[in-house]
Structures are given as C-alpha cells and as structure tokens.
C-alpha cells in the first residue's frame, strides 16, 4: 500500500509512540486522524501538524467509540488503515511481600489495564471494520502489541493485555483476510518514551538495557518506521513484527 493520500486513524496519537507514528505518516503523505482522550494535547498537535484531524474519544468507552467512528465515516468516509495504539504502561507484581505482610495485585488496576490495552482494541476494530465490510473497503489494521506478551515478570496485567492483542491480530487476520483486510501487530520492546520512564525505575531501565543485545532502548521513530513498513508490504499479514533490539533472542 502506498501511503500517499491514504486515510489513517491513529488512536492515542497525541503523545509518545502514537505521536511519532502520526508525524511519520503525515511526512509520507497520509491523511491522519487522531482519536484520543487527551483533548488538552490537540492544540499542540494541530500547531505542529495542522492537517491532522482530532476526535475526542475515550477508546475504553464503547458508546464514545461508536459515536466517534460514526462521525469519522460521515465526514471522511472509510479509512484505509486503523492503528490501535492507545494504551497505558503498568507494572505491578502478582504478589508483593512488604514489611506489613502480603500485598496482592490491585484488582481495579487489572481491570483498567485490560480495558485500556485490550478491550479498546476490540471496540475500535469492531466499530471501524464493521463499517469497512459494509462498504466493501479493503485496508489494514495495525495493533501495537509488546514483547511483554511473552510474559513479563512484574507486569501481569500489561503482559496479559498485550498477549490478547497478539491473539486478536492472528484471529482477525484469518477472519478478515478473505475480505481484503490485513491485520498486523507491531511489538516494541523497551522504548525510550516518557511513559516508559514514568512506569519503570531508572535502575530497572539500566538493567534492562544491559539485557538488550544492542545495549540501548528503542526510539519512537523506529517504531513508526516499523508501522510504515508493515502497512506498505501488502503480503505481511497475521504476524507480530517484534522490534526489540534482539532482547527476546
């Protein structure tokens, strides 16, 4: 797929990895729309990239997703690409032994992480692809997964959510491939983002870097490049593109 003039939705495109994807896609001539809950960030995004359209949308809320997708189709027609990027990083072990006893994983945070990282992918994809099928539009769905899908100690909820995203990618690729819709996941390893620094201690990050064969964190631009590559390659489907500097070797 040539990106020039293609209509692309990016969830969580205001900051971090999503922002890098938006910038890269715009530079390649795509027409990008951002779905994001961070309305306060729309102004800075529009200042930098005035042609990007922004939709206020909490992707964990099915009614909001349905409404925003309805509005999108009414104003722009069917998208060529949906990038499910919105999510949150969260680390918490299943059990923690403290000076006062045993502390269990917070159940509310489990729900929130699953809802934000996994359920939102289902909400967005079912809403967008349903309308694409009804219009017989072909296209691509890119899910942002994670190498944590293999099971990251200390990140039960995040690992489970991303494993779910990878599984959905494979299931949907088989279901939707005959209709001309490819489904792909890009799974970053440890990236040099504000959210990674916020969710992980600097000590833990230093230890992680020692385990990466390339001895550094990934750059957001490199994830954006990977996303572009899988969109452009029309035979790439149902697979997880791991971008981890060799960490999982």
């Amino acid at each position: 797929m040539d990106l020039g003039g293609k209509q692309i939705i990016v969830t969580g495109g205001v900051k971090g990895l999503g922002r890098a994807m938006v910038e890269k896609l715009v530079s390649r001539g795509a027409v990008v729309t951002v779905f994001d809950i961070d309305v306060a960030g729309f102004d800075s995004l529009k200042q930098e990239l005035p042609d990007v359209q922004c939709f206020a949308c909490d992707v964990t809320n099915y009614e909001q997703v349905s409404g925003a997708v309805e509005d999108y189709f009414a104003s722009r027609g069917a998208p060529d690409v949906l990038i499910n990027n919105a999510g949150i990083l969260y680390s918490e072990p299943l059990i923690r032994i403290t000076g006062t006893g045993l502390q269990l994983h917070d159940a509310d945070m489990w729900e929130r992480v699953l809802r934000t990282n996994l359920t939102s992918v289902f909400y967005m994809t079912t809403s967008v692809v349903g309308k694409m099928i009804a219009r017989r539009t072909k296209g691509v769905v890119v899910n942002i997964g994670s190498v944590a899908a293999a099971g990251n100690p200390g990140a039960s909820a995040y690992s489970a959510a991303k494993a779910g995203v990878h599984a959905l990618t494979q299931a949907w690729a088989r279901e939707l491939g005959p209709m001309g819709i490819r489904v792909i996941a890009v799974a970053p390893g440890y990236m040099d983002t504000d959210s990674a620094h916020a969710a992980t201690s600097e000590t833990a990050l230093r230890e992680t870097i020692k385990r990466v064969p390339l001895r550094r964190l990934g750059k957001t631009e490199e994830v954006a490049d990977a996303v572009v590559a899988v969109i452009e390659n029309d035979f790439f489907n149902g697979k997880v593109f791991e971008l981890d500097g060799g960490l999982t070797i």
Partner: protein
Amino acid sequence: MGKNLEQLLADVLQIPATEVTDQLAMTDVEVWDSLKHIELIASLEEQLGVQLSFDDIVAMRSVGDIKRVLNNKGVTV
C-alpha cells in the same frame, strides 16, 4: 471462469457437487457459517471477476440466492 458454480461451491463448502442444488441453504450445511460465507464470497469474486456489495453478500443465503444475485449482475451461471 475456471470451473462451474456448483463445483466452486462444492469445493468451498467441502461437499459433493451433486449435493449443490438451488434449494441448498446456509442452514443446511454445518460448515457454511459466517466465516465460510466470507471465504465463499472471496472465491466467487476471484473466480467470476465480479464485485459483490454488502447487500449482495447478505442476500446470498442459499445456492438459489447466489445464482439470482449473480444473474442480476449479468453473470451467467
């Protein structure tokens, strides 16, 4: 078209071509679920060089329905 419609449907639905009658409906064939229906539509489009709308796809509930839709599109089967 490389093969006739009955043979195409038989291959996708994994049943003998002799069982493919106009009366044969989705409800008669266990494997003819929504996923198989998508595969069937993709095969019809590829083999017959026809573009089916969503309404066409929804209307194709039996072999007779499929023939009627195709005939309406000028495809002789």
